[in-house]
């Protein structure tokens, strides 16, 4: 490991992208993630990077589409309302099988909502958001160190599968400062980009990047190919943290910064004789279904704690498949559940299960 610095989450994303070899960034300002753009605007000129402050998120994601089609490592970042505008582009990126990294520092909605932390975009990120059958890899770091490592990895995953990878955090993660230890050198996977548009030089057949197939058989073939790719990603790319799960009475599921609150609650519950485990999906898609299945027969029940009105809980229920009750506790509007609120919920579930 190398340099150790105290840095803000948003700046770490930008720094990690640079270290991962990203030299193209297109974005439109929106709180609470604009520091990513500021950092890039400052750093890119000296390293030959291209930054455009686009006229909208729609334009930004289409610049990403163009740069990815041209074979570059490229990133955009935004927050919820802006991510909504990018959905068209994300669907096209999926259809054209382009690698790209998208950061969503989620704020609360619906509508213009508020600028405080939220996890209300879970559905949009993992279930589609744009039109058609497609998936994005969705990474949900919970610390600044992890944010750094996953941002670098996001570019590798994107290239490996020609897929969009979303890094999903909330305003807390974007705004908070923690120490981050940078590696001296990043593992940048070499990807075959012979499909990219680079000019034929009259040496090869022309390359075409498209997502339109009028012939239904051909379009079904594309869909089958995409689905086969998604199955491979589900096998290979699941990332999950389990904490205190063996022998637990209750298992809590939480992702991102909420998982940190839950870890404190686990210690508090332990003192009262309630053993609580945590399953923290790091990839929201592919979802760590197997991990939930493994613990599906936990003595009491599951509890999903989220900064929304109940979104990931649906995937937990699908994974647990009726074997146990899956409870939910969440706050919205930028409110953060306190340790006491979560502990009370755990006590209640524990009591009812006896």
């Amino acid at each position, binding site marked *: 490991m190398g340099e150790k610095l105290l840095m803000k989450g948003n700046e770490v994303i930008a720094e990690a992208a640079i270290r991962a070899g990203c030299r*193209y960034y*297109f974005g439109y300002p929106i709180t609470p993630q604009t520091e990513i753009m500021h950092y890039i605007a400052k750093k890119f000129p000296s390293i030959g990077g*291209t930054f*455009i402050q*686009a*006229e*909208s998120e*729609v*334009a*930004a994601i*289409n*610049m*990403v*589409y*163009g*740069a*990815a*089609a*041209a*074979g*570059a490592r*490229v990133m955009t970042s935004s927050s919820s309302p802006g991510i909504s505008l990018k959905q*068209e*582009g994300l669907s*096209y990126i999926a259809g*054209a099988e382009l690698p790209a990294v998208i950061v969503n520092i989620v704020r609360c909605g619906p509508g213009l909502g508020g600028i405080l932390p939220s996890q209300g975009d879970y559905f949009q990120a993992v279930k589609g958001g744009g039109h058609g059958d497609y998936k994005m890899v969705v990474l949900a770091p919970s610390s600044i160190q992890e944010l750094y490592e996953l941002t670098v990895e996001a570019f590798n995953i994107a290239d490996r599968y020609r897929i969009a990878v979303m890094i999903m955090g909330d305003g807390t993660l974007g705004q908070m400062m923690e120490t981050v230890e940078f590696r001296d050198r990043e593992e940048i996977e070499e990807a075959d980009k012979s499909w990219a*548009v*680079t*000019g*034929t*030089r*009259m*040496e090869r057949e*022309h*390359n*075409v*990047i*498209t*997502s*339109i197939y*009028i012939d239904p058989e051909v379009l079904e073939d594309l869909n089958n190919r995409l689905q086969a790719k998604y199955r491979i990603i589900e096998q290979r790319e699941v990332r999950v943290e389990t904490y205190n799960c063996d022998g637990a009475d209750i298992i809590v599921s939480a992702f991102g910064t909420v998982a940190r609150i839950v870890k404190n609650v686990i210690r508090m519950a332990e003192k009262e004789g309630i053993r609580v485990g945590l399953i923290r999906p790091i990839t929201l898609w592919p979802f760590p279904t197997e991990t939930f299945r493994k613990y599906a027969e936990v003595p009491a029940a599951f509890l999903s704690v989220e900064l929304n009105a109940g979104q990931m809980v649906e995937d937990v229920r699908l994974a647990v498949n009726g074997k146990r009750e899956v409870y939910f506790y969440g706050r919205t509007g930028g409110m953060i559940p306190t340790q006491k609120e979560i502990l009370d919920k755990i006590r209640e579930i524990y009591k009812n299960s006896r």
Partner: protein
Amino acid sequence: MAIVFQRPHALKEKPLHYCPGCTHGIVHRLVAEVIDELGIEGITIGVSPVGCAYNNYEYFECDMVQAAHGRAPAVATGIKRVHPDKVVFTYQGDGDLAAIGTAEIIHAANRGEKITTIFINNAIYGMTSGQMAPTTLEGQVTTTTPFGRKPELHGYPVRVCEMISTLGGAVFVERVSVCDIKNINNTKRAIKKAFQVQMAGKGFSLVEVLSTCPTNWGLDPVEALQWLKDNMEPFYRLGNFKGKDLEV
């Protein structure tokens, strides 16, 4: 025997899917001839629109990218910024460019992106069967203005060249027509100049081509050309709006 006329190399040997008498095909050919004459096929990347020309990537021999409706200038921006040494063009209809993609074209032009836009103004939405376009003329009957375009209800026809030429980054802007041989030759000259302006690194270039859509105008190909001359040319002034004397 000397060959005096043949298919340009940059155009694939493939029958076009356009309706009989549609002028999309003429403009494709002109673009391909220009690519041949400038010897840039190997370094050219085109961006296809959403509209009747959505699949013109099947016709051009150069690398091609298909873009979402109206987004071609943003996509071309991404491509050109990665490959500043390549020649990048977009090919867009009037629904694509002047309605859903207004923001993208204006800002790409204003940033002075070194790309070339071939803008097909046929005063109608062709692909989706003849709805009003921003460029539909006053009184013109379309499937969504069955009683004619009324400015008080539908607004006024948009003059794209006049608008784009006010922007600092747009350096070459010209409106041409493909209504007859003379104008077709002039269109080719303008397209060539637009590409040369890009290659000289001057900035954004746009050629608006007044075109026909006989199918949705409800006219035969010859009548359509006459309609273009009689109705479009008086409203959409032909000529250069910017960059006439640019040295390239």
